[in-house]
C-alpha cells in the first residue's frame, strides 16, 4: 500500500519525460535535431514535431530569416557615430593609393546544420572571406574607378566571390548584401580630391557658359542676316519701281514734247530759268562793252568778303 504514491510519482516522471519528445518550431525559425550528438534532422521546418525524449534527441532552433550584420573596415557603431578608424579602414588600391572603406555585410542562415556545427565562429569566417575578396578587388582597380563608377561592380563581385569562399568553409551562410557604406579618400589628401570634384564642376560651368554664348550669338546673327536680306530685297524692289515710274513719266512727257518740240523746249527752258535766276546774283553786261571784272568783287564784297 505504501508503494502506491511512489509508483505514481514514478509514472508521472516518466510521462513528463516522454513529453520532452514533443517540440514546436515557431514560424520564423528552423531547427536541427541531433540524436546523441549526430544530426538526424538537419532542417526541421516550423510546426509541431516528435522526437526521442531528452537527452537522446536534442533540438536547436535558429532564426534563419533574421539578417545578421557585420562590418568590414570598422565597427557597427562607426556609421552611427560618424567615426572612422584609420588603420582598420585603409585599403591599398591598384594604383597604390590609400582609400578608406567601410563595408556592411548582411547574411542569414542558409544551411542550419552547417551553420551550427561546421565553423567555430561563423561571423569571423564571413568577415574574413568578405575582407579578403574586397582587398583583392580593391588591389586591382584605380582609385578613381573605386570612388566613382566601380562601386556597384565591386559589391556584386565581392558578394559572389565571398559566397563561394564561405561555401568552401561550409559555414552554412547566405550572404544577402555586401554594401560599400563609405568609400573616401584619406583625410590627408581629402582637400585635393575635393578640388578635383570642383574642377570638374568648373569645367562643366565654363562649357555651359560657352554654350550659352553660342546660343546667344548664332540666332542673333541669323536675325541680322535675315534683316540684311530683307533690306536688300526691299532696295531692289524700290529701285526697279522707281525706275519704272521715272521711265513711264519720262516717256509720256517725251511724247508730248515731240509733238511741238520748239515751243515745249522753250517753255521748259524759260520755266527753269524762272526757277534758277531769282536765287542767284546776276550781272548783265552789254555785248559791245569791255568787261571790268572788278565789279564782280565789288558786287560780292559787302555780303561775302573773301
Amino acid at each position, binding site marked *: 500500500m505504501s508503494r502506491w504514491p511512489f509508483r505514481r510519482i514514478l509514472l508521472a516522471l516518466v510521462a513528463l519525460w516522454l513529453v520532452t519528445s514533443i517540440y514546436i518550431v515557431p514560424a520564423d525559425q528552423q531547427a536541427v535535431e541531433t540524436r*546523441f550528438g549526430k544530426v538526424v534532422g538537419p532542417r526541421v521546418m516550423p510546426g509541431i514535431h516528435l522526437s526521442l525524449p531528452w537527452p537522446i534527441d536534442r533540438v536547436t532552433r535558429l532564426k534563419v530569416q533574421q539578417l545578421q550584420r557585420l562590418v568590414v573596415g570598422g565597427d557597427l557603431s562607426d556609421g552611427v557615430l560618424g567615426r572612422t578608424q584609420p588603420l582598420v579602414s585603409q*585599403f591599398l588600391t591598384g594604383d597604390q593609393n590609400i582609400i578608406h572603406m567601410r563595408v556592411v555585410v548582411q547574411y542569414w542562415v542558409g544551411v542550419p546544420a552547417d551553420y551550427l556545427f561546421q565553423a567555430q565562429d561563423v561571423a569571423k569566417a564571413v568577415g574574413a*572571406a568578405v575582407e579578403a575578396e574586397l*582587398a583583392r578587388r580593391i588591389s586591382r582597380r584605380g582609385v578613381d574607378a573605386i570612388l566613382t563608377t566601380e562601386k556597384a561592380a565591386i559589391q556584386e563581385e565581392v558578394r559572389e566571390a565571398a559566397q563561394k569562399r564561405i561555401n568552401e*568553409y561550409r559555414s552554412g551562410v547566405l550572404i544577402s548584401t555586401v554594401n560599400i557604406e563609405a568609400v573616401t579618400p584619406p583625410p590627408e589628401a581629402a582637400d585635393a580630391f575635393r578640388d578635383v570634384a570642383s574642377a570638374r564642376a568648373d*569645367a562643366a560651368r565654363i562649357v555651359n557658359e560657352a554654350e550659352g554664348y553660342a546660343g546667344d550669338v548664332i540666332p542673333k546673327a541669323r536675325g541680322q542676316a535675315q534683316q540684311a536680306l530683307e533690306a536688300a530685297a526691299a532696295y*531692289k524692289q524700290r529701285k526697279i519701281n522707281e*525706275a519704272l515710274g521715272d521711265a513711264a513719266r519720262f516717256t509720256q512727257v517725251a511724247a508730248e514734247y515731240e509733238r511741238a518740240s520748239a515751243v515745249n523746249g522753250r517753255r521748259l*527752258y524759260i520755266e527753269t530759268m524762272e526757277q534758277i535766276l531769282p536765287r542767284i546774283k546776276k550781272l548783265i*553786261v552789254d555785248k559791245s562793252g569791255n568787261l571790268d571784272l572788278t565789279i564782280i568783287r565789288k558786287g560780292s564784297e559787302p555780303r561775302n568778303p573773301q
Partner: protein
Amino acid sequence: MKLTETHYRAAAAVGVLVFLWLTFFTVKETEFVLVTQFGKPVRTITDAGLHLKWFFQTANYFDRRLRIYNPRPSEFLSRDKKNLVIESYVAWKIQDPKRFIETVGDAAAAEMRLHDIVWSGLAAALGTHDLEGMVSTSPEKIQAQQVLDDLTGATDRAALAQYGIQVIDVRIKRLNLPEQNKQSVYARMRAERERIARQYRAEGEEQALRIRADADRQKEEILSVAYKTAEKTKGEGDAESTRIYSQAYSRNPRFYKLVRTLESYKKIFDDKTTVILSSDSELLKIMMRGESGVQ
C-alpha cells in the same frame, strides 16, 4: 534481510549505471574523439553519435570545426624592394587528432606553427614577385591569387603531414603600406589630384573656347553669306533700274538731254552763284530789243 536485498539491488543498479556511463559516450558533430587507453591513443572517432569504449579507456574531445586564425600584420619586402604590410588569415581545422595531440596539443600552439609556415611562405612568395604582382591596375600582372593558392596548398601539405591540421585557405585580408611610407604616398596622391584637377579645368577651357570660336565662325559665316546675297540682290535692282532708265531715255535722247541739263542747272546754280549775262543772250533778247527780239 529484506533491507539488505534492497541495498544490493540499489548498489547493483548504481554499478550498472556507472558502467554504462563509462562505456557509452556521445560524439557531437562539432567534435572528434580520440580514445586513449592509459594515455595511449587507440582509436579516432569521427562519426557523431553514440559510441562504446571500454570503461578503462578515456575519450578525448577535439573541436573539429573550422577556425579562422589571424596572424599579426607583418611587413614584407617585394622583389623590387618595396615594403608591403600584409594581413592574412588562415582557415584551418583539425584533421588528424592523433597527430595533432602528439605534435602540437592545443589550438594556440597550432596557430603558432601555422604562423611560421604562412609567414615564411609569404616572405618567399613576395621575394620572387614585384609589388605590381600584388597591387596593380593591370589585372594580367597580378599574381596574388596564384601565390595564395600555391601557399594554401603548400601550407596544407606541411600542416597535415606534420601536425594533422587541414588548411582550407590562406588569404590576404588586407594590403597596406608601412606607416613611414604613407606620408610620401599621400603627397603623391595630392600631386596626382592636383594634376587631374588642372587637367579638368584646362579641358573645360579648351572645350569652351572651341564652342565660342565655332559660334563666332558661324556668326561670321551667316553674316557674310547674308551680305553676299544682299549685295547681289541690290545689284540686280540697280542693274534692272539702269536698264529701265536707259531703255526709256534712249528712245528720246534729245528730250532727255534737254530735261536733264535743265534739271542739273537747278542744282548747279545756288544763291552763291553769280551769272554774267550778255544782253543779247537768248533770255534777255526780248528785254533789250522788244518784239524784234523774238525770232
